[in-house]
């Protein structure tokens, strides 16, 4: 019994790679990349609300910090989800790019290569797609829907709705 359980616990390298591939968990590097981008995109509206809606940073820095952190978390959540969905689609499309590398000895190398390409493309595309959607929703919310609200409410509502909708749409397939 104990031998069986120890066998099941010791997964092979291939199984681990497969689990990693189909998992939503990110590597440290990818996480840092996503959180960094999310923080930058969340901080950009501060300039908009400061210059256009006249929210002085010295008076409202607490709200800006809270809003940025909350939005950055939701945006990075959306990045992760969209990247996960896209990666497998791109991986499947890459079969057309490497059609001849099907021999056993080259299979691992081609899989690794395709995985890297799919990982990179899915990451960058997820960032591009989510950033454009976030900024579009934010502009519509702050200049059209909430334009008559006080700047503080405008900031919180616009950022919450933009990042909330982003996270919500990212959960669809």
């Amino acid at each position, binding site marked *: 019994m104990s031998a069986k359980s120890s066998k099941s616990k010791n997964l092979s390298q291939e199984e681990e790679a497969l689990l990693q591939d189909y998992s939503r968990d990110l590597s440290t590097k990818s996480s840092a990349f996503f959180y960094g981008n999310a923080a930058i995109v969340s901080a950009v509206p501060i300039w908009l609300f400061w210059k256009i809606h006249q929210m002085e940073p010295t008076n409202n820095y607490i709200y800006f910090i809270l809003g940025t952190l909350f939005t950055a978390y939701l945006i990075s959540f959306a990045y992760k989800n969209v990247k996960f969905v*896209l990666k497998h689609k791109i991986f499947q499309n890459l079969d057309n790019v490497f059609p001849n590398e099907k021999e056993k000895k080259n299979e691992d190398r081609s899989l690794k290569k395709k995985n890297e390409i799919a990982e990179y493309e899915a990451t960058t*595309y997820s960032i591009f797609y989510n950033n*454009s959607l976030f900024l*579009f929703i934010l502009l519509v919310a702050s*200049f059209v829907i909430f334009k008559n609200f006080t700047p503080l409410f405008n900031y919180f509502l616009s950022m919450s709705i933009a990042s909330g909708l982003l996270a919500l749409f990212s959960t669809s397939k």
Partner: protein
Amino acid sequence: MKSIFFAVLIIATSASGQQCNQAKILNVRTSTSENSKLNTETAFIIQFKAQCQNNARNVPFYAEIDGKFLTSSADATGENYEISWSEPIKKARSGEIKVRIFDEEGYGAFRKAQRSGDLSSSKDLQTVTFYHQGSYKGPSVQIEFLVTVLFGVIFYFAKSSMNKIQN
């Protein structure tokens, strides 16, 4: 006492009725307001210096613009005069504007000529011609609308590319 009082009255009335003999209009400057975003009406201002042969100061001058008359105001020196008027932005015309400046005598003669219908005999001191280029009314399309549309186009491009990948 009474004689002194009457003398003072005579001096006062003669001062208020002082006429400018052979007035010379100098240093004419004109300005108009050109930003409709900052103003509710378009203002027109003509400033000039008037030198009279009899050194009269603070005398009334009259400006005729499109058949309407305006009186001038003077500064503390009594030599520098200003004629100003304003019009609603939508009504204010752009282009060349001619303003005829009269002294009191010329103004009386012009009104007489107007009533008789013969304006050729009226003589002004000077005709000031200046150009008003019109008020800037702002961009015809708001910039935030353009930016929103731009980001909408970028998102549309991203979405259509994503659909291609998924299909």
